[in-house]
């Protein structure tokens, strides 16, 4: 029972951390943040691996392996797609080819673009 209370404490503290860490986010980051959080819960892969490694019989093994496949998709795909999103947010750092001929006409101080 003491173990359960400690897990409950961990749960409560995690709720506070989750709430506080995301206090204020600009709307521009809503999608990447959602996507990154989504990738993080892909860590269920750890659970899937453990369960698959202990599974017995076709049903358990089959279901557990499906869980491994799905969790891997969630985790790996999630981090990759988040990275792609965020990459698009800083074109001024990375001088992309798409900038084309207009690039010279850009007016403002480049540093101000970092605020985005």
């Amino acid at each position, binding site marked *: 029972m003491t173990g359960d209370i400690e897990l409950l404490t*961990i749960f409560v503290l*995690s709720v506070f951390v*989750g*709430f506080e*860490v*995301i206090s*204020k986010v600009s*709307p*521009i*980051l*809503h*999608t*990447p*943040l*959602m*996507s*990154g*959080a*989504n990738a*993080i*819960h892909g*860590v*269920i892969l750890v*659970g*899937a691996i*453990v*369960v*698959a*490694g*202990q*599974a017995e019989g076709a*049903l358990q093994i089959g*279901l*557990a392996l*499906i*869980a*491994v*496949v*799905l*969790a*891997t*998709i*969630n*985790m790996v*795909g*999630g*981090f*990759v*797609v988040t990275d*792609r999103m965020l990459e*698009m947010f800083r*074109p*001024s750092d990375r001088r992309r080819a798409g900038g084309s001929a*207009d*690039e010279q006409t850009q*007016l403002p101080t480049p540093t*101000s*673009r*970092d605020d*985005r």
Partner: protein
Amino acid sequence: MSGSDTWVQLAYLVAATCFIVALKGLSAPRTARTGNLLGAAGAVLAVTVALVSEDLDHLPLIIAAMAIGVAVGVPAARRVPMTGMPQLVAMFNGVGGGAAAAVAFVEFLRSGDDDPVAVVLATVFSVVVGCVSLTGSLVTFAKLQELMTTRPVVFPGGRFVSAGVAAVTVGLGLAVAPTRSEGLLAAVAVAGLASGVLFVLPVGGADVPVVISLLNAFTGLTVAASGYVLDSTLLIVAGTLVGAAGTVLTRLMAAAMGRSIASILFGAFTTVSTAGTTGSATSTRPVRSGGPEDVAILLAYARRVVIIPGYGLAVAQAQHTVKELADVLMARGVRVMYGVHAVAGRMPGHMNVLLAEARVPYSQLEEMDQANSDMPATDVALVVGANDVVNPSARTETGSPIFGMPIIDADAARNVVFLKRSMRPGFAGIDNPLLYDPKTTMLFGDAKDSLAKLVAAVKAL
């Protein structure tokens, strides 16, 4: 979990800490990318430790399954066009929920008879919410991918059906605790799958991103519950973290669209059905359409022009052309600003990304509030492939699915010009009275073509 060796547990704690710092990083532009990479590092650490430390049967099969997952996930994430990213995230979220449900289910098959009641209830929670997240996410995917209508799907008595299915799910779930029946848990899973569909169907397309975020929080909680079942502190921390952060994020996203979460989820049940108000019904009203030369004169002799980009700009990939037009106008002394709505396009920040790619100066971007307060001093509002985000019925028509969404008040400018291909409605599927306004000029055609013609016409003046 078997590998309760101290170093293994410490590694899991490090991974959990990575996730916390990752979320914190993701919430500020400067650190977002590093944050994501840190999260990935934590995940890799955790998975590696799990593979190495646990005493696993079927290791080759597990590795093969992971390889399949990577082979599916990475190309999907690499190839998806930017406009498809939100639905891909929905998809990833759904499969994650399914995985968490499956993990809890297998653990129940293995040791369900001996577990304490609390663990069984956590199992049921994980299975139900994981299944809701799975099918709910599939429906949001279908809506965003326009595989089905983006408008709320409501059928007579729908709310009773939904309530009934939800009640059955809970009832069956509670019955698992005394009976420990595997068949019952399977029935619970099916009921959960059905609940997920019914839960998301009535949500209007414009609200779908908010629902994805909510389902994301659900999956987080599912993972936490599975973590409790498996006695894994890492899963509890990571899942709860995502559950809590996802809840906050959902509220922030809903607030950015001027909606409450309750009105998004249940709004379609309570407001008047809008099934009959599509564009076709009103398309007999007169519309003023103009040629590129007419619009070019309007623009070239204006003192202040606001460009309001929307989804059509992304479709036409017209971001460079729109900047060219702006430059040409500015060279003539016209003040040009961009009015960027937070949910223009198909994902938050969509327009910012496009305009940044075209290297539009940050100082020329106005957020909604700023744009609206400058609108009365604006001569021309040039709406490039946007529709819903300038639809005045969001302000007035209580029955409209977008009622209450804050919009850019293009109708407050002296003249309005729409660049779009037809009179068809936008994402929310509703008519836009501004298209028929006497001060509105329609310039039909693909946005990129129209903009190129406008550039030529202004230069020729």
